[in-house]
């Protein structure tokens, strides 16, 4: 294909847009053609790196050699790739028959942000930015190993989203890596806009309650997990990364656990697991005990509970459901509302509704305590995705209890554990206790 034809072809690709700028440089027997999208590139850099040297060079060959030597230079494998890269912020330079790609991308979203979802008191407060290259830069600067590998995929037929898979070649869980790559290759979505969306696409179970991948915005968490043999996926334009394979305990740890001293982190961990159990079991326990087996509590306590329920017209199940429903509404509202209003909403909802409900005898005092305890203990769960799941699990257990009583609640909990054990995350069992034998010679196999 002659250079004339290539030029024609490139022009044809951008026929319908006015975005593409075409510039001809012609001076002193030197001739070059520039293509770029004005809004994507850094024009100062273009002037400094390409246009000015062009006029200073003695001949075309010297200019060619200069272009290849530029750090921003990228080889163009095909004309299709050249066009794609132009939409990506590259400048295409055509000299005689050769295509040169120079990366002059102007990135405005490369500011490293501070953590907003997973905040910690100790430890770093840096979060991922929305720019892929900045993110990789962050991770590389935290993880100095030659074995750190990064592979790029472009997915999403329409928006051509760039996905980076980051892992440590030496430690990586090979089985999981294979599964992830295979699933990525099979992916045929039109648009992929967020990393969490990718999570859903990669998960082949349609009805899955528990998250299969860990979502995080903290580079230190990513580095920690990569060192442990896991795989991180980052999308361009997303400040959240995905980590797989994720197991249940990953969702119950914060990075801060490693930053505290032993006893403090142990205490915090115990607190967190207690919170998990409280938030799952407490509503069910209330229904089970008040409606099915009041004699379980010691007499004084049973009388207090029964006394506070005097005048409440509903069965305990409706009462709990009613209060939980309002709590969920409040939670949802405080997430969606603008920050200025959300404080008012919680005050009105939490304080005023809480007192009014007990005064109107629509719910007992103890119910209000239980609902707030449940709400608070849900916030203790460090990873947001699990907290969302727990809200649903709680309702399911509540429903089971109202049909089968306390024994139902207990068996429901055991069933839940069984379900978690049954789950897989990219070939890894989702829940199993200490796997210390992995390092030594394992004495049992999988079956």
């Amino acid at each position, binding site marked *: 294909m002659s250079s004339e034809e290539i030029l024609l072809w490139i022009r044809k690709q951008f026929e319908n847009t006015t975005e593409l700028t075409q510039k001809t440089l012609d001076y002193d027997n030197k001739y070059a053609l520039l293509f770029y999208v004005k809004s994507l590139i850094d024009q100062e850099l273009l002037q400094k790196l390409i246009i000015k040297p062009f006029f200073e060079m003695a001949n075309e060959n010297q200019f060619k050699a200069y272009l290849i030597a530029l750090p921003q230079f990228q080889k163009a494998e095909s004309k299709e790739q050249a066009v794609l890269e132009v939409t990506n912020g590259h400048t295409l330079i055509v000299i005689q028959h050769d295509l040169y790609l120079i990366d002059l991308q102007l990135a405005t979203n490369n500011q490293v942000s501070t953590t907003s979802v997973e905040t910690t008191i100790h430890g770093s407060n840096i979060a991922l930015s929305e720019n892929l290259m900045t993110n990789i830069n962050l991770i590389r600067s935290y993880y100095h190993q030659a074995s750190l590998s990064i592979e790029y995929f472009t997915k999403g037929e329409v928006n051509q989203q760039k996905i980076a898979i980051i892992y440590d070649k030496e430690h990586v869980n090979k089985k999981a890596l294979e599964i992830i790559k295979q699933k990525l290759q099979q992916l045929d979505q039109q648009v992929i806009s967020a990393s969490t969306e990718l999570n859903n696409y990669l998960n082949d179970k349609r009805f899955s309650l528990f998250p299969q991948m860990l979502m995080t915005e903290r580079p230190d968490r990513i580095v920690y997990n990569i060192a442990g043999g896991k795989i991180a996926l980052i999308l361009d334009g997303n400040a959240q990364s995905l980590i797989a394979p994720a197991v249940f305990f990953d969702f119950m740890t914060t990075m801060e656990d490693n930053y505290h001293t032993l006893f403090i982190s142990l205490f915090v961990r115990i607190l967190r697991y207690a919170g998990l159990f409280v938030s799952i079991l407490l509503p069910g326990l209330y229904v089970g005990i008040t409606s*099915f*087996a009041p*004699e*379980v*509590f*010691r*007499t004084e*306590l049973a009388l207090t509970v029964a006394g506070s329920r005097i005048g409440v017209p509903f069965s305990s199940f409706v009462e709990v459901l009613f209060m939980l429903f309002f709590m969920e509404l409040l939670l949802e509202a405080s997430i969606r509302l603008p920050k200025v209003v959300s404080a008012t909403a919680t005050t009105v909802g939490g304080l005023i509704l809480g007192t009014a409900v007990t005064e109107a005898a629509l719910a007992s005092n103890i119910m209000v305590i239980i609902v707030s305890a449940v709400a608070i203990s849900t916030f203790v769960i460090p990873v947001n995705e699990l907290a969302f799941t727990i809200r649903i699990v709680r309702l399911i257990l509540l429903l089971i209890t109202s*049909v*089968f*009583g*306390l*024994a*139902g609640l*207990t*068996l*429901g909990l*055991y*069933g839940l*554990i*069984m379900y978690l*054990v*049954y789950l897989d995350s990219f070939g890894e*069992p989702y*829940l*199993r*206790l200490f796997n210390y034998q992995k390092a030594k*010679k*394992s*004495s*049992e*196999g*999988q*079956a």
Partner: protein
Amino acid sequence: MSRYYYYLVLINMIANVIASVPAILLHFHDDGAVSAMIFAVVLGPILVFYFTRFFNHFPGMTLPELLQKTTAKWFYNPFILFLAITWFIAGMITLITYTFLLIRYLTPEMPIIQISLTILLAVIFGCLMKTDRVFYTIEIILLLTVPLTILVFIKAYTNENLRWEFVKEAALYFNQFPNLNAFSACFFLFLGSANLIIFNRFFKNKQNFGFKQLTLIVAISIMTLFTTYFIPIGFNGVEGIGELVYPWITTSDSLRMKFSLIERVLFIFLLFYLGIAFLSILIHWHVSIELLKYVFNFEKFKFKGFKFGVFLPIPFYIGVSLYFVRLLDEYQLFRFSSIFYNILIIFFPMMLILFFFIKRRMKNVKKAEQN
């Protein structure tokens, strides 16, 4: 030995603290129960030893796989089916016992079908899991339940109402001729290792099982049997102990925790022991369903690519259990399990003879494979 092996042995022992074993033992308290226990503690570990050693010889292989290689088809299919039914009944006895317990002590006004359905629905889908997942479930639930159960036992041992004179008096009956029913009930406690017929596929590497491991099992079994038998006597006396239907529940109800939210230990005991009963049923029925898979080819049943074959035993399991839950009363269950245990003491020693044959023939198979 891998820690997972001990779970199999342990659960079969402690699950029966609450089931019909103590009732059977205490029923014969003045008729050879103590000597039967001593007898069982001697003979049981021998069986455990030979069972475990046999399966250690063939790491990662299940009994049906071994039989496939060494025996004829006319023997193989009926035998595996018989084993599957045996294991199903073992699970069902635990299920029915626990259903009766719950209706008596926790939710008396609930229909019995509904109570047994709770347990059935919680357990049944777990039986279809892979063997390694069954082990992981066991480990986690044990971790949740065992500390509290041990606390209850400690509370019982340190209680001031526990009269050691009664225990001593009961122990004096040791010089009688061992009672067969009591012996078979005790012997059942040791059959946990028999679950290896399927669970052995998990132990892919050669385990070492010798004197030390066996001593541990014997020690645990003596402790369990002592607790099962003598503690209820210590609380209730020797007179009329044979009439109690659930000796251990009655015992735990005489315990109080003064400063706790839940004063009566009974409820803690009941709800946490439910976990152990759950695991016991899970293990037995997992073995049973896996055995059935060797007899019937469930993979054949497909509907639009969805293999529903593995789900076929489930309605059958639920149906039969519900039928028996309604049919039996507590006395009949007591008789029924007693007969079941009696059959097992004949059956399991016979299996050792079978193992002997398998071992000899496997040598030939190995030789043939090498050539």
